[in-house]
C-alpha cells in the first residue's frame, strides 16, 4: 500500500500547513491497528490527541455551578436590602446614643439640684437674723478697696 499521501500530510502537519480536515485524516489513519513500521512512532502522538479530548469535569460540576450562581443572585438581593436599611440602622443607633447621653446628663443635673436645696435651707436659717442684711458680701468689699482710676489716661 502506498503511504505517500499520509507521509505528505505528516510533513504538512509538522510545517503547520495542514488544514483541520487533513489533520483529522492523520488522526483517523493512526487509529488503525496496522500502521507501517516507519510511521508507527507517530501513532502515540495522534492517539494522545484523541485521548486528550476525552478529559472531562466531574459529573456533579453542573449542579455545584448552578447552586453557586443561585447563591450569588440571592446574596446580591440581600445586599441591596441591607444597603437600603443600613442608613436607617445607623440613624437609630445615633439617636439611641444621644438619648442615652442626654439621660445621663439630665440625671446628673437632677442630682446637682439637691445640693442647691441644701444651701437654700441655710439661707432660710440666716433670714431669721436681720443682721445678715448688714453683713458685707464679697462683691461690696472689693469695690471699697479698689483704687480710683485715672480717666484721662489715653
Amino acid at each position, binding site marked *: 500500500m502506498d503511504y505517500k499521501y499520509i507521509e505528505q500530510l505528516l510533513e504538512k502537519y509538522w510545517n503547520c500547513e495542514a488544514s483541520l480536515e487533513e489533520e483529522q485524516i492523520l488522526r483517523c489513519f493512526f487509529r488503525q491497528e496496522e500502521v507501517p513500521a516507519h510511521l508507527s512512532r507517530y501513532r*502515540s502522538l495522534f492517539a494522545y*490527541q484523541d485521548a486528550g*479530548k476525552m478529559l472531562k469535569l466531574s459529573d456533579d460540576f453542573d449542579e455545584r455551578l448552578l447552586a*453557586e450562581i443561585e447563591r450569588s443572585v440571592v446574596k446580591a438581593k440581600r445586599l441591596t436590602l441591607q444597603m437600603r436599611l443600613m442608613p436607617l440602622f445607623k440613624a437609630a443607633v445615633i439617636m439611641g446614643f444621644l438619648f442615652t447621653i442626654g439621660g445621663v446628663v439630665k440625671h446628673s443635673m437632677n442630682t446637682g439640684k439637691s445640693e442647691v436645696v441644701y444651701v437654700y435651707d441655710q439661707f432660710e436659717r440666716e433670714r431669721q437674723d436681720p443682721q445678715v442684711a448688714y453683713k458685707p458680701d464679697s462683691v461690696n468689699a472689693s469695690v471699697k478697696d479698689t483704687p480710683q482710676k485715672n480717666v484721662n489716661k489715653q
Partner: protein
Amino acid sequence: MHTISFREDILPLKDKLFRLALRITFDRAEAEDIVQDTLIRVWNKRDEWQQMDSIEAYCLTIARNLAIDRSQKMESQNLELTPETQEMPDAKMPDQLMEQNEQLSIIHRLINELPEKQRSILQLRDIEGKNYKEIAVILGLTEEQVKVNLFRARQRIRLKYNEINDYGL
C-alpha cells in the same frame, strides 16, 4: 436570531474550558475552580452575550487569563508546577498497551514542558480542533503569530520525541 441560553450554549463549553485551564495550571482542582469562576463571570455578563462575535472565544479567553493569573500566583508562592503524571500502567497489562501508555506519558511531559503560549495553542489546535483565526482571537495574537508558535511547538515535540525514541534519553 438565536437567543443564547446559558444551559444550552455556554455550559456545554465547560470541558473545553477545563482542559485548557488544566493545560496551563497542571492542577485539576485549580482548573475546576477556574472553570466555575469563568462561567460565573460569563453569567454576570449576560447582557452582552448577544453582541459577542463568539461566546466560545470569550469564555476561553477568560479561562486562559484566569489560569495564567493563578499559575503565576502559585509560582510566587513557590509551589512547584509539576505536570500531572500519567497513571502508572497496570503490571497485568499487555506489553503493547504498556508501551503505548509509556509513549503517551512521554508526549504528555513534552507538551507540558513547552512555554504557556505554545502549550495553549497546541491544546486549542490539536485537541480542541480550533482554526488559526479562532485561536488568534482567544490569545489576542495575529494568525501569523499563532502559526509561528504552533510551528515551534510541533517542531520541538518532534525533535525531543525522536531523540527519546532513537537514543532512549
